[in-house]
């Protein structure tokens, strides 16, 4: 049995991504988006490897990661909650939803819970202005959120998280 180190694993999964999207500069964003999805952030090591594989300077990769608000250097939670703070949601009461989220999760905006499950962030207009206040949990959209519903949204995530944990034990990860 061959023991893979974490670094070997990252290198391998990145090689697969480069193969899938093609070894060109324009594949950079799709590759980074997948790393973010799989690892909840893009580490320095991952940036270095992607740069090597695409034949560009690592600082080019860094520059791209730092530009996009959905790409992060620091590990984010399994669930990133993004509350829209733009005008229409603001008028529809986003402040109260935001406050309740902070209280229920015990963190401030920009922070991640110590167990690594939840990150709380603000987003700019997410295109649900007629149905505010709106928020995203990862890719999922929640509209017309009330402060009272916040609790249910968090519980829903916890259930999903539990399910994932069981699954990964089964496949021996």
């Amino acid at each position, binding site marked *: 049995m061959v023991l893979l180190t974490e670094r070997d694993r990252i290198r391998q999964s990145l090689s697969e991504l480069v193969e899938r999207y093609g070894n060109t500069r*324009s594949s950079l964003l799709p590759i980074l*988006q997948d790393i973010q999805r799989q690892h909840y952030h893009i580490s320095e090591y991952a940036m270095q490897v992607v740069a090597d594989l695409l034949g560009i300077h690592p600082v080019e990769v860094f520059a791209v990661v730092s530009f996009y608000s959905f*790409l992060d250097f620091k590990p984010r939670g399994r669930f990133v909650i993004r509350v829209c703070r733009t005008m229409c949601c*603001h008028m529809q009461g986003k402040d109260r939803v935001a406050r309740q989220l902070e209280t229920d999760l015990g963190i401030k905006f920009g922070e991640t819970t110590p167990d690594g499950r939840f990150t709380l962030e603000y987003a700019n207009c997410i295109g649900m202005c007629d149905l505010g206040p709106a928020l995203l949990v990862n890719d999922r959209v929640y509209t017309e959120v009330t402060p009272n519903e916040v609790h249910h949204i968090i519980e829903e995530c916890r259930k999903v998280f539990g399910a994932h944990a069981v699954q990964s034990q089964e496949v021996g990860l």
Partner: protein
Amino acid sequence: MIKSFVDKKLTFRDMDPDVSLKAAADMSSAEIIETVSASSLRGRGGAGFPTGAKWKFCSRAEGDQKYVVCNADEGEPGTFKDRVILTRFPHLVFAGMSIAARAVGATRGLLYLRGEYTYLREGLMAALQKRRDDGLLGDEIMGVDGFEFDIEIRMGSGAYVCGEETALIESLEGHRGEPRNRPPFTADTGMNAMPSVVNNVETFAWAAAIMEKGPEWFRVVGTDQSTGFKLFSVSGDIDRPGVYELPLGITVQELLAAVGGENAKAAVIGGASGRVVSQAEFNRKVCYEDVPTGGAVIVFGPGRDMLDVAENFLEFMCEESCGQCTPCRLGNTKLLECVRMLQEGTCSAAYLREIVELGESIHLASKCGLGQSSGNIFLSIVENFREEIMGRALGAVEPATLRS
């Protein structure tokens, strides 16, 4: 599915994307461009560039590999009509892209979907696969020799400026989404330095509709310079927020009546890069020659605090400025600082005058459309609501009199 209110039977619902594509497949490139030009269709993404002219430039440009790019970044605050179009009429949009491809001689299509709309991706991929299976994408589309085109979906990653077409191309090429200088224009030097057509989601859908119904059908609605219907995303203090199909050239007053916002004190037309229209201007027309918009209308009831509005939009601009050019990056933080001073009642009339001048400089000196329009909301609030924003002291204005 997100249940947005959609006003009436949309024109798009009566369209048959296959008929549109068939019509284009039977035409030459020049005939398609002629048809779109004759309709006087202008871009629905905000800037209003004539679509036929854009396609013509691109068709004449030399390049081995041309691209058709659909701008589905929809980041403008208050805009959500592209989301509704992509959800309900994806085939019309894809047909429009294929028609553009035939017109300019492109074989590759890219749909740049904002990261916030990732949940739409699967449905769109399925729609694309269906088109491939039905022979509407791929080689020999509709059996026409040499009509070859396919579409790929690319995701954004949370950056408003990537809706600007040159930034969008930078992003597609794997770079930071920083706008380029123009010229050169995208039509001859776009994706991978190749000729590219970039259009808004709604523009492609209308182009397809025009191929089915003909340019005269489209021209009967609207004004001389702004033909056709337009989809509006209307939100804020109104009875029925949602997506409305209205003729261009409609007055603000009429628009407000249609959405149940008659008692509005002001509206932002055109989102964060638009401007505030106050009651005194409600007789103005919403169209490219008067008050232009990509479709965002945010309505403010009598109780809204206009400084709160200015603050929120400037926070947006400070956050979303790409940071390349100084007027936009630093200028907007100065404007925001001024709003905070006004809130505390510590902004002198003289300082306000200076800041207004700064706002005008930002407009003149910024590199791209984001910076050039970033101060508009602030400037139009200062212009129209001086009595409301001056002379404040913390706590002096009862919140109850400000908020509805």
